[in-house]
């Protein structure tokens, strides 16, 4: 008897029954395939400006920094100013970022997954979650996961329209792209601030294995005042 059979039998024995009967199983299938939407906390609700303000405030609380830009073409200069001693930058190969003029900002840009020697990386987030200041980044052909973790300094471009209230919005969006549970990319990262540890005498320090600094470039209109809150 395989371990799988033994284990399932042991579980059923403990629960005092055989395999679930068809009607119960059907109910569970429905629960999985049409998940009941969560009741969302108040912190995930609000109009556009409220959510943007909350996102900005939460981002600051978790020691990330925020800069607002009216247009994407301001990104290279903003990155160069933030990482003022950098000469090279590793960038996610997304059309939004590939068409920008990096050299005008004094940065030599290369595109692709991060490598051990990359110290400055630029990614593009799929969403920003206002309830916690979290960035959602999904792996894909234009979005290498290593870029979120290997470089010392990590700048993330986020469209203001992609700031949503609750995490669940990301799941709903992903479900629309696929079917029958097969819509997840290899990796979905929720990033909430730069990396940290308290493993040295329980004192908090920023920057251990993941990026030491996280800088969010929020692109869109009507964002004045968000940087300082």
């Amino acid at each position, binding site marked *: 008897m395989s*371990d*799988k059979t033994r*284990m*399932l039998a*042991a*579980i*059923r*024995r*403990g*629960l005092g029954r055989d*395999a*679930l009967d068809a009607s*119960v*199983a059907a109910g*569970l299938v429905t*629960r*999985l395939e049409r*998940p*009941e939407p*969560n009741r969302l*906390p*108040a912190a995930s609700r609000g109009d556009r400006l409220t959510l943007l303000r909350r996102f900005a405030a*939460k981002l600051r609380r978790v020691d990330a920094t925020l800069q607002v830009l009216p247009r994407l073409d301001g990104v290279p200069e903003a990155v160069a100013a933030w990482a003022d001693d950098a000469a090279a930058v590793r960038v996610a*190969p997304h059309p939004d970022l590939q068409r920008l003029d990096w050299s005008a900002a004094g940065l030599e840009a290369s595109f*692709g*997954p991060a490598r*051990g020697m990359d110290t400055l990386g630029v990614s593009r987030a799929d969403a920003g979650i206002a309830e916690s200041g*979290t960035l959602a980044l999904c*792996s*894909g*052909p234009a979005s*290498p*996961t*290593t870029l*979120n*973790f290997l470089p010392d300094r990590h700048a993330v471009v986020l469209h203001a329209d992609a700031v949503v209230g609750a*995490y*669940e919005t990301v799941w709903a969006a992903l479900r629309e792209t696929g079917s029958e*549970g*097969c819509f997840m*990319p*290899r*990796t979905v*990262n*929720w990033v*909430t*601030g730069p*990396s940290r*540890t*308290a*493993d*040295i*005498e*329980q*004192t908090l*320090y920023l*920057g*251990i*294995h*993941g990026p030491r600094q996280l800088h969010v470039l929020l692109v869109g209109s009507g964002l004045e005042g968000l940087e300082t809150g």
Partner: protein
Amino acid sequence: MQPRSHAFPANVARALADDGLQVALTRTSAGFPKKRLEGVASLPEFELLRDQAEAIREHVLDHLDWYLERFAAQVEKQGGTVHWCADAEAAREAVLGICQQAGARTVTKGKSMIGEEIAINDHLSAHGITPVETDLGEYIIQLRGETPSHIVAPALHVSRAQVTQAFREHHLDRDPERPLDAPRDLLGEARDVLRERFLAADVGITGANMLVAETGTSLIVTNEGNGDLTQTLPRVHVVLASIEKVVPTLEDATTLLRVLARSITGQEQSVYTTFSTGPRRANDLDGPADYHVVLLDNGRSALLGTPAQPILRCIRCGACLGHCPVYQQVGGHAYGWVYSGPMGAALTPGLLGLPEAWHLPQASTLCGRCEDVCPVRIPIPEVLRHWRAQSWEQGRPGGVSRLALRTWAWLATHPRAYRLASSLAARVLRWRADGRGALGSLPGLGGWTATRDLPAPEEGRPFLVQWQERQP
């Protein structure tokens, strides 16, 4: 890890006498409750979410077989492989097999209690494969040849000076004169050393806080980012998870995540919450080519349908450890195995058996603070009482304490004898107190009187005797 839970009383004595450990424990004990309160205050819906979290976990346990099969089917649909392992040996062999097939020489590891439970590091080392712990706390204790003393803060018992010493002893390809006392120096060096290991590893092993049945996804929660480098850089990603970690949907996982980090560090979320589903896709730019999930039972199925079932709801947040008056005095090593604190006392007897672990549920005042702070409302005192009842049936404790309790119970069920005994006791204790109001010592009660006085009975006659005398 060879269990030393049977030596718990001796472990406790050693822990209480360990000044360095006591300093470390005192430093942390006020922090966890304070942080949790702040985290809870920032989410008005917290108690409602706890109710939901409890319901989700109990629902899964009641249907665990179905959800596990569903999870496994989804993993396989996405191109991953599931290994069903009834016990630790099967899990060790599965992991070794994966590593050998990958021709692995070094393996990086994110924090995994299951890894400790099956002692995977020793097994890999014995077969010429080098495991490297990457969580900073785990790395420190790996260098020191120790085991974790807390599920969230494994190096809680190690001082900064001890970390410096460990780095000097093990990082030999560096300038011996380099400054290494400031935390910044230690962190910088740890990052550099481990970065080389991350990039060189052939296989990355992580645990899983949850397994999502809907999509065949495993998720980990870290603050350092080590789990992510572990599972993204190597060619092979192995997830070690026990069977009860399943949750039905991504929505359910999200509900649990809203209460998990909040309960231990007060954070809305840990810095990195990562959802991994299968190997890299055809047009991905990075990620592992192979994805394996090792599902371990190791005694958990036997807890289903028993009064200990609720401990299987545990999502390993560590809040109970952070609030337990016993844990705060003795730390994690005293418990003698992988799981410590209240959840360790509730789970370990189920995994190791009572002959080895019976002391753990005894070492509790049943104050209930753990249940108070548990995000999934595990009734830990109830589970501890269940183990105590089983222990009692097996004859533990024996000796004097058993005789004392049985004598007490006999007297209490024989009210006239009880009246005589209590009258006698009142008179004897007052006599020994000799007008001072309290006793400084009493044969047989050295446990009490070693460190505190015993107030004497107020009068030579108990209340019920006096009350009877006053009746017409």
